[in-house]
């Protein structure tokens, strides 16, 4: 029997552009055309000023480590503990939950405010997850 798989997102009409973006290798955010507020998670209106005129744009993919836990138990299906569950702060402002790849999952290696860059992990033809790794250079 196959190992239980990690929880897989199911896009909705309001979030489809985000998941289309990750599949295409882009981290897409939204910006309000009226007040310039940049926000996440996706929705077709601005949560700051309620304008429905909003645009999707490609984010830089640059971020820093805001906070995290290193989960030991119980582990989520599809994960081998210990693994870090991180919240990263994008250069554009919004924060999002993610994981940190190419880095030991230890308090010594995971330093708050360390610079990160987006990486994409393909789960299947429809879903690619945004992940982050320590920024090069």
């Amino acid at each position, binding site marked *: 029997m196959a190992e239980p798989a990690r929880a897989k*997102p199911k896009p909705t009409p309001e979030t489809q552009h985000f*998941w289309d973006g990750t599949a295409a290798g882009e981290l897409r955010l939204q910006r309000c055309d009226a007040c310039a507020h940049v926000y996440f998670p996706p929705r077709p209106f601005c949560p700051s000023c309620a304008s429905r005129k909003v645009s999707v744009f490609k984010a830089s993919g640059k971020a820093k480590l805001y906070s995290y*836990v290193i*989960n030991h138990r119980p582990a*989520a299906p599809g994960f081998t503990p210990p693994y870090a569950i991180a919240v990263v702060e994008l250069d554009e402002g919004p924060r999002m939950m993610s994981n940190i790849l190419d880095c030991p999952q230890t308090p010594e290696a995971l330093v708050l405010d360390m610079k990160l860059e987006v990486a994409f992990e393909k789960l299947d033809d429809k879903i690619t997850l945004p992940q982050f790794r320590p920024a090069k250079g």
Partner: protein
Amino acid sequence: MRRNQVAVVGAAETTELGIIPNMSQIQLHADAALNAIADAGLKLSDIDGIATAVETPQQIAHYLGIKPTWVDGTSVGGCSFMLHVRHAAAAIEAGLCKTVLITHAESGKSMIGKLPRSTPPDSLNGQFESPFGVFGPPSMFPIPVLRYMKTHGITHEQIAMVAVVQREWAAKNPRATMKAPITVEDVLNSKMIAYPFRILQCCLVTDGGGALILTSADRAKDFPNKPVYILGTGESVETPMVSQMETFNSSRAFKTAGPLAFKEAGISHGDVDHLMIYDAFAHLPLFGLGDLGFMPHEETGKFIADGNTRPGGKLPLNTNGGGLSYMHSGMYGMYALQESVRQMRGIAPAQVKDAKISVCHGVGGMFAASGTIIFTNEK
């Protein structure tokens, strides 16, 4: 809402707390409710308002045989019962009903007749949190801790002291699940759950329930037990996604609900004799002390580590032992309220001498919601 217009006239927990393998979740509700109705010296037919969370009000009303004319099913996590108290007080004052029963119960350990909790993959949490390995509150609630510690200069030892001090309170309480003394070293060497938190910094998982009965203050003197008045209340919600909190340096929901209650009560922090801050995990009392305005966040860790909240300290906090040592069936807010009522009645196992004002602060979800109730035994 005006002060002291509504009072708690009945309060009780389930007959047993801890592991209760011979009762389903709905029967735990009924057990607590019947105990509270007996405590108030009432009949079932006297109850005309009902509030509960997770289980629906219609489920509990029908099971108990109550025919309500006022209903509240606010379900925002473990502080739902603080919100029920606030809503019930407003409803009684507005004349919508006379006598409200608020129930909580959860078969959190034995899992008998417990409704499943699930996160649909097309919900926002299912799309933007679940895929990254969150799995239950221990993997989510502590996510802000490292940022909070860095910003405010809080140490691992100070947060460990939260568990140590609450065990001191629990040792005085015959109904507490965990009573053996622990040290900071014990906490920091206990089993790792989700760094930076170890098992002694995470709440217990037990079965149990509790119920409250509220009525107007002018009727309250007719009841067998000392009435406990509602002096001030507050509530708020922020976000169901811990990753989307405005900041990890404080809780917006706490900062909204707490000051609302203090303002309504017309009291200052120095007036508080007894304090409950829902401690699902060990960082919550620090957030609570800071966000309710008792002191700057920078001082919260030292305040607890210096012993100010332990038995004999100047601000007795979580005097039943808290979610960390007393019990935690999943939605602990009801047990915090029960302890505040016991302290105001003067019957708590670890009674704070001459306590006249008790602040009871709850959290729902992972900082998703908050409710604050301020009680007094003086009208």
